[in-house]
């Protein structure tokens, strides 16, 4: 379900530290800084800028915009497409964006470095609890001889990023299957390149998402598991967040934003085709492809702190963070 770019690679932690320093500096600059970027338009409408990573699971977010839900909540939101949540958070630190898409590992990383990023709303609901609705898959290449996760020992596994939920999941699954996670060669690779890498034998397994997974499965790759449904059922693995100082200065905007997103997610739950239709314009997809887009969600917009704690615990275990801030502090409360 999560699209993150490999280009940031292992720099996530470093970038998070830079963002933390910038937020700290802005907070020290006084309350005027924290409200930067938000402006009131005509008729009391609040102008906002939101950074997002374009992919199919943004359908509810796109609907909040196209269906006029943001507008009816007094928000005029400008959308900025970006390659990764780290780029989104860096832009938020600059004050040019107020809200943005983040994945839970990046959210945790930021908070453990002292940057007070907080989830305000869900993107399109939490992870599904069953494999059927989850379109993130760990696949083994045809002819790789891999039948189970234990067979991944010593093999090359492609992941979109090396410090992501996907790479974390592979380590947790490996340990659970009784093999040393360090024995797996984790290789960063963009989703579009994974099907070819699998069929050419450059990697023997990959964590891949729809619609990219279709090509791999058509080439004969087999599904080993659905890591997110398996490890984080009903979990909050992504959210739309804002920075602590901004939220403190603009509680009304945050509350309107959350209400708008919750309304959009509830509408999309009942009207999926109307929601998916927004992908045609926002992702330039042909309408037929947009209608068939696979969304990984249970449509429940209530943020799940227990799943954030779980992910955080795994991140600590695998040395990605040193401190573990409480999950409740990473979710905005009015």
């Amino acid at each position, binding site marked *: 379900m999560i699209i993150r770019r490999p280009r940031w690679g292992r*720099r996530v932690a470093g970038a998070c530290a830079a963002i933390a320093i910038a937020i700290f500096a802005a907070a020290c600059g006084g309350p005027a800084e924290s409200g930067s970027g938000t402006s009131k338009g005509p008729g009391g409408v609040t102008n906002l800028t939101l950074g997002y990573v*374009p992919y*199919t699971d943004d359908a509810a977010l796109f609907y909040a915009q196209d269906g006029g839900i943001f507008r009816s909540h007094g928000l005029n939101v400008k959308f900025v497409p*970006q390659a990764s949540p780290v*780029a989104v958070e860096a832009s938020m630190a*600059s004050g040019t964006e107020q809200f943005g898409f983040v994945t839970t590992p990046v959210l945790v990383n930021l908070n453990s470095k002292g940057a007070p990023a907080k989830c305000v709303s869900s993107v399109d609901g939490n992870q599904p609890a069953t494999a059927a609705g989850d379109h993130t898959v760990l696949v083994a290449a045809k002819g790789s001889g891999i039948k189970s996760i234990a067979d991944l020992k010593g093999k090359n596994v492609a992941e979109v990023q090396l410090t992501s939920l996907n790479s974390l999941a592979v380590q947790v699954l490996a340990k659970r299957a009784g093999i040393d996670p360090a024995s797996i060669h984790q290789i960063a690779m963009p989703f*579009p390149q994974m099907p070819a890498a699998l069929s050419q034998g450059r990697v023997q397994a990959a964590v891949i998402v729809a619609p990219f997974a279709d*090509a791999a499965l058509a080439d004969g790759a087999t599904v080993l598991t659905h890591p997110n449904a398996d490890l984080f059922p009903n979990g909050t693995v992504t959210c739309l967040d804002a920075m602590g100082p901004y939220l403190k200065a603009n509680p009304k905007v945050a509350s309107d934003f959350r209400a708008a997103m919750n309304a959009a997610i509830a509408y999309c739950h009942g009207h999926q085709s109307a929601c998916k239709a927004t992908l045609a314009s926002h*992702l330039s*997809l042909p309408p037929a492809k947009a209608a068939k887009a696979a969304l990984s969600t249970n449509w429940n917009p209530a943020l799940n702190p227990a799943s954030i704690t779980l992910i955080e615990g795994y991140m600590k275990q695998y040395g990605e963070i040193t401190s573990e801030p409480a999950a409740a502090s990473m979710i905005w409360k009015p």
Partner: protein
Amino acid sequence: MRLRAALVRYGSRLLVLVAALGLWQGLSAAGIISGDEFPSMTATARALGDQAGSAALWTAVGQTLAGWGAGLLIGGAAAVALGTLIGLNRFAYRSSIGVIEFFKTIPVVAILPIALVLWGVTLNMKIALVTFAVFWPLVIQVCYGVRSLDPVARDTAAALGVTGPRKFAVVTLPSAAPFIATGLRVSVAVALIVDIVAELIGGGSGLGTRILVAENAGPSQYPAMYAYIVVAGILGVLLAGVFAVAERRLLHWHSAQRADTVAPEPAAVVPVAS
């Protein structure tokens, strides 16, 4: 005779292009490259045709050119000014060249998060990165150009009593011009690459963002993604062409431009000792 030479030159280029496109289509048609991984030449051409008729493409090209142009202008002007000052003074040159060489090697992608934190996803972010990428290599080129002043010209100027700003305008700058021109020609491509990378990874508006959105939309949009990449390539060729022509016009008096064939470039010049 000249017509024939031109025919041969452009004909051979066209032939290579057609052969490359044919090979691309052949590999796709033979199933060696799957359409789910890399689109065929015809599918990409179709996507390119669709985009050419849409305002979105031309807006994106304009946005990319804005970052490219402003960054190149600021970085170029700063490099010429500072490079000249450093090049004219042996002490300044010797004490600063190490720092310049150091900054030259810093990949722009490494400082992209800092630029994002400072400026966010704005035109200024793109301009700052392009300026940074263009400035360091060009400042070295300008230093070398200024320091490679022909001793005969220098002595003649001294004998004629040409000094100060006049010496700079009629002796130093013309002597350094070919170096600056070569540096600029290289910078044109560097600036475009950095600008598109800033859009692709950082998110500034332009061709890079269009490539990102098409890539993330899935395999059905690969033709559109590669069409944008082709546009970026064509843009690079056009801009480099414009600069090459401008260089020929402006530096027609220089020996490197006089020969009929392509002259050796003063790009990789060994720094003047001492």
